[in-house]
């Protein structure tokens, strides 16, 4: 007998997590990408490397440090005490923070590439047409970088949906709070509930296909506009 809520709750939680993470990443990642694309600071590649680390780090390593960070003895614990909680680990908020760090490179890199591809010229043109730097950013840089933002949003979302190791380390497996899709699938397999595992896993396959297809179509369309 399939309990639908055991499927829906992780699905809903995952979508909430991925949506929130993606939105936060667009807000946080855009200024970082802008700085990386335009700064002439010599140490900017060091910052770029730090941002990119989650690509190569084993998720468990990242999860381990995040656990220390979010736990009762880390800064996360201090933050949590503001609203009377003991820790940020094993909470949805902690999961969001972990996801933001984990998916950061997948959002920052495409946006940075897009800003770099625009180059200096359109911004110089805007300045000679009386646009302040802030104005030029909104009226010229952002619209021209739109394809990069689409790629970034899609990748950031998809990557957050697929995370497993970090979630397991800092979120645990609390239904309705931290039990996301990937963990739910793992659980179903562990307990040999193949039907549920099939439904969720098959759904993920379909989801991934749609994501990749959407990206390819978007890319084609933007390259045609640029031609």
């Amino acid at each position, binding site marked *: 007998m399939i309990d639908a809520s055991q499927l829906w709750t992780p699905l809903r939680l995952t979508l909430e997590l991925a949506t929130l993470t993606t939105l936060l990443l667009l807000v946080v990642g855009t200024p970082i990408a802008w700085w990386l694309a335009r700064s002439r600071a010599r140490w900017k590649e060091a910052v770029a490397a730090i941002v990119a680390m989650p690509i190569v780090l084993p998720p468990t390593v990242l999860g381990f440090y995040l656990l220390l960070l979010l736990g009762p003895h880390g800064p996360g614990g201090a933050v949590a005490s503001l609203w009377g909680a003991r820790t940020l680990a094993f909470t949805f908020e902690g999961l969001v923070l972990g996801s933001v760090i984990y998916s950061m490179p997948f959002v920052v890199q495409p946006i940075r590439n897009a800003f770099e591809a625009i180059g200096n010229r359109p911004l*110089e*043109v805007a300045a*000679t*047409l009386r*646009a302040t730097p802030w104005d030029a950013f909104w009226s010229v840089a952002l619209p*021209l970088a739109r394809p990069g933002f689409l790629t970034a949003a899609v990748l950031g979302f998809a990557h957050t949906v697929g995370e497993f190791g970090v979630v397991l380390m800092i979120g645990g497996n609390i239904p309705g709070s931290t039990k996301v899709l990937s963990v739910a699938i793992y659980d179903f397999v562990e307990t040999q509930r193949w039907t549920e595992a099939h439904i969720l896993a098959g759904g993920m396959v379909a989801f991934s296909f749609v994501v990749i297809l959407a990206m390819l179509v978007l890319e084609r369309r933007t390259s045609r506009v640029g031609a």
Partner: protein
Amino acid sequence: MTAASASIAVELNGGLGSFQLEVRFAAPMRGITALFGPSGCGKTTILRCVAGLERLAGRIVLGGEVWQDEAAGIFRPTHLRHVGYVFQEPSLFQHLSVKDNLLYGARRVRATESAPLKLDDIVGLLGIGHLLGRSTAALSGGERQRIAVGRALLAQPSILLMDEPLSALDRGSKEEILPYFEMLHERLALPILYVSHDFAEVERLADTLVMLDKGRVRAAGPIRELQLDLELPLIAAADAAVIIEGTIAGVDRAFGLTEVDIEGGRLLVPGEHGPVGQKRRLRITATDVSLARGAPQASTIVNSLPGRIVAIDSEVQGPQVNVIVALGAHGQGLRIAARITRKSLAGLKLAVGEEVHAQIKGVALIATRTSATQ
């Protein structure tokens, strides 16, 4: 050129990488001033500094407004300078329509500011009305550059800076766009700094010339003075010429000639040009001018004007010398150059101060005009 409040004063010292720039010049607040020199002489850098896109030590003052004074710690950012800048390659915003491109700067002009350049006028002046609804991707190079010029003008600039705006275009597009630039020159009370390495373009457009070489100013002044300066390389060029301005005085329909009054005489130019009273640019090539003592009695050359020799290029070793003649019975008119053989110079015993007749075999009207802009 010295009245600071009515001029563009530029003084720059500094290096960008291995390149050293050390320039100082003043240009009038009207007409086209060409920054002319070989590639790599620093002309684009100067233009970028005037726009505030590049910063070198120095001082830039436009009509009394200090834009930059490194000594006083003043550097006005680009968006507050109100320059119109036309880049070498037409840099239209891809994400905006032609019309939104045109209005990008116009929308950022404060309502309290005077905005003498209206969309309809600029559209008419540049002949771009039929392009407004199109996407920028569907435009030719020449059309894009015209939109870029219109966009710059509609931002109500106090100066227009043009960085080799024709160099990225093919020959046909150049010929298509040049008449529009000539119109701007004639119709707008806006100073233009025009960077170019093509002297034919400069002759067609410029009133004032700043000659640059290896990051320094070689000479600056009215173009026709520099063209006749024996110290400068312009007069030594194979096709050395002088640009003069004339007024159309009448048309001789029987012979298909146009009479053009210049300071110091009247010239006949082939073709029927009009209307009477309009100012035109003429180009007289030094090799087309010969000199005679006394008025020639019978000659096929229709343009023979009295004048007085004011300078002779005596340093030249070759078979030919350049002689500068001031037109008019007493040498009070415009100056032109005549390239004659050293043999004739000796044979006629020509010397500075003597009266001669300049026989001008060819005069070219260089400013063409399209009927659409009338």
